[in-house]
């Protein structure tokens, strides 16, 4: 019940060397000790209050003791609060840790830093009743009930109850001005020194936090307004008034810009990329759209990364190439400009697909064991690209181990159906080179390269066929690789050897 019991008095007596304390004395001493203790605490609290504190310190107890003309207890005059430790095995027994200090350590320790001297600073806690948003003030309570509403309420009922009205967002006039100024700067003179300073203030000033939602809205709005125009630059039918304007470059640039916007804001603005790709894919898949638009769409998609290309472009590649093919041929498309455009589109497609496959292959570690399969597959298709070897390739397919046959079977159909365009393409190439005319020299040189590479392929094919047998156990690796292999194969079908420069030399060797 009481804080100080008879037992404690006995313990204290023992600790100071009184062994023969009679129980009567302890019994009558205990309540008195408690009374004195409480008395001292009461006075300590007074001292604490007059020191304008809400935590009791050892100093307060000392002052209280001196009020009672008692010698203060020495040794507790540290400024900091005492750290009490719980005694092991006791629930409510505490002690103050008193470490042994080595005098040598104390002497040798560097002098502690001199404490900073007291200083007074001045700031506005409120200006005409409104707290300015400055770092010195506590974060402003922006959500506050307007004064008028409060007053009305007070008049209405005599009951002195503060009823919280629906919250209203109140921005100070200064903040509004600030916001207007910054947004104006952003839109008009984003290169100026002033704007840079504004950015610094935006980044550091804690008082601006009520504006954060507004700025977020502003940026989102601007982005909304920005994106359509950017996308227009990418997929517009005609850019620039004159035909000679180099709109291709603009499209390339825009594609990169779009990609960087997506990269920068995609994570905070989640549906940005999906919306963009949707627009682009629509443009790409619409056969009525001009080739320039297709070009822009392809470039845009390509810039968004290989994954986008793989998921959105490649599945549509075959039909598209079929559409594109006639445009590229001299005999079918007499309009030089149109044909040029078609070649441009072809080039961009090639690049996109090439990038994609390059990226795809890059992620594979070099796995020599799987090499034969890859080689087998690619070889099979490579051979197909040249029409006179098609038969051979078919034979090779049949020679494949039954394990993989199921996989390849599906492709065979594709290969067969698709072989004609690629064949034609080859023809076109040869024609172009043989005709030796209007078509850009690039295509001619490409054709040259094609020839040399295919020769090389044929040569290496012979070498590689030897190592066929090592395969079967590594089915798993094969499966992983199958996808990329398949992509590569189909690409090869579509582009012929054009795709090969995109495959890095080591990989190329792996495949060839």
């Amino acid at each position, binding site marked *: 019940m009481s804080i100080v019991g008879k037992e404690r008095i006995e313990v204290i007596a023992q600790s100071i060397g009184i062994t023969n304390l009679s129980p009567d004395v302890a019994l009558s001493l205990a309540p008195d000790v408690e009374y004195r203790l409480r008395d001292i605490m009461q006075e300590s609290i*007074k001292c604490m209050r007059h*020191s304008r504190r809400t935590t009791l310190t050892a100093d307060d107890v000392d002052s209280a003791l001196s009020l009672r003309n008692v010698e203060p207890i020495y040794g507790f005059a540290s400024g900091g609060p005492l750290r009490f430790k719980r005694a092991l095995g006791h629930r409510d027994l505490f002690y103050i840790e008193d470490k042994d200090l080595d005098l040598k350590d104390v002497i040798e320790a560097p002098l502690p830093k001199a404490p900073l001297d007291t200083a007074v600073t001045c700031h506005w*806690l*409120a200006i*005409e009743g409104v707290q300015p948003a400055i770092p010195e003030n506590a974060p402003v309570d922006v959500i506050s009930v307007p004064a008028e509403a409060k007053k009305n309420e007070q008049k209405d009922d005599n009951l002195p109850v503060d009823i919280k009205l629906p919250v209203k967002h109140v921005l100070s006039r200064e903040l509004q001005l600030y916001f207007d100024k910054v947004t104006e700067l952003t839109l008009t003179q984003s290169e100026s020194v002033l704007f840079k300073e504004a950015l610094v203030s935006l980044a550091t000033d804690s008082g601006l936090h009520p504006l954060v939602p507004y700025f977020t809205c502003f940026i989102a709005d601007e982005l909304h307004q920005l994106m359509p125009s950017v996308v227009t630059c990418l997929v517009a039918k005609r850019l620039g008034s004159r035909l000679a304007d180099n709109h291709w470059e603009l499209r390339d640039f825009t594609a990169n810009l779009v990609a960087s916007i997506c990269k920068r804001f995609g994570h905070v603005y989640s549906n940005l990329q999906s919306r963009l790709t949707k627009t682009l894919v629509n443009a790409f898949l619409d056969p009525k759209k001009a080739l320039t638009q297709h070009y822009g769409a392809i470039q845009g998609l390509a810039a968004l990364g290989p994954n986008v290309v793989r998921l959105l472009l490649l599945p549509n590649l075959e039909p598209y190439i079929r559409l594109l093919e006639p445009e590229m041929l001299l005999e079918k498309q007499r309009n030089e400009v149109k044909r040029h455009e078609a070649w441009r589109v072809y080039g961009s497609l090639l690049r996109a697909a090439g990038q994609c496959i390059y990226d795809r292959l890059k992620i594979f570690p070099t796995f020599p064991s799987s090499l034969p399969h890859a080689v087998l597959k690619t070889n099979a298709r490579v051979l197909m690209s040249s029409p006179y070897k098609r038969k051979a390739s078919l034979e090779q397919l049949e020679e494949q181990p039954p394990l993989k046959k199921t996989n390849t079977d599906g492709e065979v159909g594709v290969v067969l159906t698709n072989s004609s365009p690629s064949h034609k393409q080859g023809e076109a190439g040869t024609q172009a080179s043989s005709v030796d005319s209007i078509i850009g020299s690039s295509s001619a040189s490409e054709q040259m390269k094609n020839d040399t590479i295919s020769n090389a392929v044929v040569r290496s094919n012979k070498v590689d066929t030897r190592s066929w047998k090592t395969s079967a156990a590594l089915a798993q690796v094969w499966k992983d690789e199958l996808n990329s292999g398949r992509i590569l194969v189909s690409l090869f079908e579509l582009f012929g050897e054009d795709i090969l420069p995109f495959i890095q030399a080591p990989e190329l060797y792996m495949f060839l």
Partner: protein
Amino acid sequence: MEEDEIAGYVTAYLKKKGFTQTEKIFQEEFQTNKTNSSPLEPDIAKHILSFSQLESGPARFHDGYSRLRSWTHCSLDLYKHELLRVLYPVFIHCFMDLVAKGHVQEARHFFNTFREDHEMMHLRDLQKLEGVLSPTHLEEMEFAHSLRQSKFNIKICEYSYELLLQHLHSTQSTTILGIINEHINFQVTPGQPSSIVDDPEAVTLSGSSQDAANQINQKEIHWGLLEDSLEERLEKASSLLSDSEKGEGEAKEGETEENKKRPVEGGKQGASIKKVKKDKGGSATGKNTKAEVNTVSAAPRVKPELPMPIIPSEVEQSILEDLRNRVQLSSVALPSVSFYTFLNTHNGLSCSSISHDGSLVAGGFSDSSLKVWDMAKLGEQTASSLSQDENDTSQNPQMGQSGGGKRQYTLFQGHSGPVYAASFSPVGEFILSSSADSTIRLWSTTYNANLVCYKGHNYPVWDVQFSPVGHYFASSSHDRTARIWSMERIQPLRIMAGHLSDVDCVQWHANCNYIATGSSDKTVRLWDVQSGECVRVFVGHRSMILSLAMSPDGRYMASGGEDGTIMMWDLSSGRCLTPLIGHTSCVWSLAFSCEGSVLASGSADCSVKLWDVNTSTKVSRAEEKSGNASRLRSLKTLPTKSTPVYALRFSRRNLLFAGGALAKNG
């Protein structure tokens, strides 16, 4: 029943109670009356019997109290809250009776069983009483002593009273009945039970009994302002101006006319010449109709009871200039607040004070030092001022400028204990500081030196305040007195004794004829400076009083307590107008704006709150008689960044200055 038998019981009872005189008289009377006595009524006989059968054991207190308690809790809702009030006094007296009889263990048990009931209302009292463990403590402890000496006053309606008595008689709880008779003073009112709102006043106890307090509060006080104040002069000047320029509304002119005459007659020496005032009330009623804005001028005028110091004319000019530039504050026009934050105080700042123009800030520290910052110079920090300070050091060894360096403040050293209060003179050329070393020191800010050390108190001096006109000051101390001093005498002029515990804070009335003191005994007292008498006792706080403020029109007083409540008092009636609930921790400081429309309060909960004074005073004027006033409206809470607010000061231009030490971890 035999008469002898009864007589035997009675004598036994009287003996037991120790009423030897009564016993003797009873015996005599019994003998003389024996022959012609009428037979006693049976129920009286029964009563007498029951008295004699009193169980002497301590259990009867416990039983009696618990019976009363359960009965009260089961009583009718309408009367319940009135009956509940009875429990507390019964409870503490049961406890003290038990202690007094030496049943300490039982007393402890009793106390702990029922203490929860009263913790909400009387926590601090219970904490004090808890320590009472032997009969000697009862004698020794002031609080217990005063409880034993005085009676509780409980307002109760007729029916509740009847109910209570009926219950006590029917259960024959004579012990409890005895306590109630001995220690409770029922004020039985006819009609309906009082509403719960009155609760805080319902159970009150002051050192002298409530009657005495009421009696004190009957005394007449003149709360009006000093005649020929500077405000008045300004008003006169401005009204003259407006008269000449616009020939403004006649009503106003007429009003100011009568006000105008007096100071003109008195002239400049009006202050020193003691002029008898004839119509105190007259001007008040005439003025009351005037616009609310000028509450100050609405107050009646009184003559000063102290010889007033003469204000130098240049100071007067600057004050007048300030008054002319004063911003009018109201519930819609809130003040600007400039906050002075003390940094790196290392928990040592125990008080702070701001001069009337806000240019000087003083901090009293627990290391006995007083530091004064000149906020105007803080920006410049000229080297010349520093060197000048050092010159002073050679003359005054008390000055601690020898450290030199780039100190931004003036260090005043001289005290030998924590400095608990500091106060600037109205013009700012002097500072007073009071300390735990029981002295008050007067410092000059112009010479940066200690001028006088006032010794008179025997214990730490908690608070010191300059009077509104300077020259005089009041101090309050742990020795339970407040004292009035003048700067030129080292002995106090008056000693105000009467508080039952420490006098924690002191504040001057606007007209310098009164001082108010707040105490740990939870009362505020108003003292007449001239006579040294207590003229008002304000009862109602539930914790020690830490801060006081007087409205500029002299009519109201605000007091802030340890528990965060602020109370607004009407000085003339001695009533609490409105308790202001809002702060969650100690209210360190209070300040009225210069025209009295806004009250600012600074608290340990790290906020400054602004309260609307006008709403409450308007209402109170209308319903003064009924004593029904609505609560003061909280206008605004201005939170600081973890800085408890130690000091507040409205400048003469109505700019609010606040000061506090930044607390590191919230």
